[in-house]
């Protein structure tokens, strides 16, 4: 048991170190973007002095490494800084804190991700297992073809087809996923159905195919033949003999897709004008609102690292060699 704990702690430490390096990279990339917020707001006709004064106010006149450590120091204390937008050269400050801006967007994104995951993950596992069981049968072939098609279609196309069918023709769901203030839980679900459905279709194929591959791989192992020859039924072979050994690869692909649901959904959010964090980041990049971009980048990296770490840990704790050392 101790060795498992040590490994988990090692992974955690590695995750934190990775996150640190990612923060450096994010900051460097953002600093390398041409132009800055002052130019974006004031326009090209602005006077040199005005731009300089505004820069000074935002702290952009300081050298990059000092700005990085100021930012990092803040982040470590849970302070992601203040958004640039809302400030104007006029001196009136209507800016809001980054946390305040990101929080509702992050919540929306996580809501959509959770809604998708609740449908997509069990469905993908079920389809993957069933396809593996009836390998090369009719079900397997049709599901393989269907998933190939869904992988090949660009997600915006899927999204527009859904809008055309379910919003325009059938009129059951709104084509635009606007979340009004004071929306109830069910309102949220209602507006999120079409984006969730699109994302389900996009992620399910990958998860299902990898599950199928992992199981087929194990079905060829001698201990599965042994189980069969002990008279274990097909169903129990899968449940008792294959799945316990398949969790590591399956967890990896699920983690990958869950991460995608958080960090890769900007296209779907844009099509449905869903107020998620992906669109916030893209908007902030075009307006050069660096504190927001940096915070979003860090959140995305953190999500990715965390989910992969969880998959890693699942791989470790389902491995009897590590769990029960000699």
């Amino acid at each position, binding site marked *: 048991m101790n060795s498992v704990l040590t490994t988990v702690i090692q992974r955690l430490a590695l995750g934190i170190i990775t996150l640190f390096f990612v923060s450096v990279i994010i900051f460097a990339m953002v600093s390398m973007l041409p132009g800055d917020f002052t130019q974006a707001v004031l326009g090209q006709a602005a006077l040199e002095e005005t731009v300089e004064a505004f820069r000074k106010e935002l702290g952009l006149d300081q050298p990059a490494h000092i700005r990085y450590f100021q930012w990092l120091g803040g982040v470590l204390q849970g302070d992601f800084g203040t958004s640039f937008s809302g400030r104007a050269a006029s001196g009136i400050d209507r800016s809001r804190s980054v946390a305040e801006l990101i929080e509702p967007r992050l919540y929306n994104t996580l809501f959509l991700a959770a809604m998708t995951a609740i449908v997509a993950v069990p469905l993908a596992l079920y389809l993957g297992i069933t396809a593996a069981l009836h390998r090369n049968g009719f079900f397997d072939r049709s599901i393989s073809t269907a998933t190939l098609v869904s992988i090949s279609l660009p997600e915006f196309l899927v999204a527009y087809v859904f809008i055309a069918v379910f919003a325009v023709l059938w009129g059951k769901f709104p084509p635009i996923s606007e979340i009004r203030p004071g929306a109830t839980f069910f309102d949220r679900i209602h507006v999120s159905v079409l984006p969730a459905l699109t994302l389900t279709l996009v992620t399910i194929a990958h998860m299902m195919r990898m599950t199928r591959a992992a199981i087929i791989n194990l079905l*060829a*192992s*001698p*201990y599965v*033949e*042994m*189980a*069969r*020859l*002990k*008279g*274990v*039924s097909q169903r*129990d072979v899968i449940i*008792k*003999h294959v799945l*316990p*050994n398949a969790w590591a690869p399956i967890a990896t692909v699920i983690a990958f897709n869950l991460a995608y649901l958080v960090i890769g959904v900007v296209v779907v959010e844009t099509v449905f004008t869903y107020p998620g964090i992906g669109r916030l980041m893209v908007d902030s990049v075009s307006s050069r609102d660096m504190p927001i971009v940096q915070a979003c980048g860090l959140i995305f990296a953190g999500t990715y690292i965390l989910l992969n770490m969880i998959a890693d840990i699942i791989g470790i704790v*389902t491995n*009897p*060699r590590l769990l*029960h050392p*000699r």
Partner: protein
Amino acid sequence: MSTKSDLLLDMRNIEIEGFSDERWHPIIKGVDLSLNRGEILGLIGESGAGKSTLGLAAMGFARPGCRITGGQIMFDGRDLRSLKEPEKRKLWGSRIAYVAQSAAASFNPAHRLIDQTIEANLIKGLKPAKEARDDAIELYRALQLPDPEKIGFRYPHQVSGGQLQRVMTAMAMATRPDLIIFDEPTTALDVTTQVEVLLAMRNIVEQFHTAAIYITHDLAVVAQMADRIKVLRYGEQVEEAETRRMLSDPQEAYTKSLWSVRSIQKEESTSDDYVLELEGIDAAYSRSLKVLKDVNIKVPRGRTVAVVGESGSGKSTTARVITGLLPPSTGSVRFNGQPLPAALKDRNLDQLREIQMIYQMADTAMNPRQTVAEIIGRPLEFYHNMTGRKKEARLSELLKMIELDDSFADRLPSELSGGQKQRICIARALAAEPDLIICDEVTSALDQIVQEGILNLLLNLQKEFGISYIFITHDIATVKAISDEIVIMFQGEVVEQGLKSEILSPPHPDYTQLLLSSVPEMDPDWLDNLVADR
């Protein structure tokens, strides 16, 4: 005795096909097999003879990619071929059980041994869990497993290969089946472990009067286990007879050839001129895992030194030290009287050329996408700068040396038989014109007749070119056939080194005695005598 008929299994005119290269090929071509209650039938033949396929067919089972296309399989009055899968499943694990070759791969790594042992009892509702567990513990005890009360609560990776093989026998025995198929159950074990497992299996089968089909390629093993022996070749029966008669008086030419393989006998000789001297070698893979302890080995020029030992004794590690793949932590390697740099990267071209290696798995030791000409041509270019005509001529010469002709030059490894592949590997080693060739278990993956051909080839090459060999093996019969000197290794240390005649004749140190006495002999009474002696 049973009131039912004594005939338990009756297979008639069995035909089985396997799918490869996009079509179905016959694997078993009309074989009959019958077995009485409590009887043990030995099924022997070389790899590819169809032994396992026929053994599994006795359960009405065909591996994926195989299908039973003809014949009748009557088990206790029921035709298994006409039964549907769920019907057969009721028989599997309760009345017919299977013991596989690789115990390590045949246990599910995720479950405790005892849960796997009693699984068949539980799914068939034959015994309640508590009772089944107690019974499993009794079986562990009967199979002389250490700590029978607790061993079942371990996971497969926590026990040794020999123990796993016995647990698997207990698992097969758990439902007291009428028939057990043993599929090469001791092939993967060391000889000293094999003896214990054979004894345990034979005793328990006798105790419960279980019938068994014992599949193996090892004649000496089957002689200890079986009442009757059936010889298979290319999916057809060669002959079948009661064990003693089969051993003393085989009828068919093929059977006789199987019996006579171990007939090579090299006259031993030695020399004071040493090609290789290892002195005080210690080696380790990591700081905690010390593999070799003070190893001293001398290889006389133009002679063969057989390095013998069980798995984990440090044989292959010694080879890695000599080739420079694993620099030793202390000690020196001298080659032709000169010190040899410890690490591969510090050796010059000539030092690299002088020592060549041939591996156990010829398959994986060759690039599957290179032709024979490319494989053998590489060392010709690398060591001797040969190109064009000169290279072609030498290639042709080398092929002649390994008793193949020029038509092989353009073939890929996949187009060669196992023996031919190993010959190509020998030619590749010869191409470098080495002084010493290290042969790491080069014949253990080959059938006996093919083994004989390879060993004879190696001996002839030695006679002609004066090459020295280090022959790493666990097979005492091979050692007797080809060596001048023998080194016996145990747990990383050299137990004994000397002339073949000295090492093989008593008195022996304890370990040598144990090792030599554990090698099965063709005498059906060998196991009984051994038990009496110990």
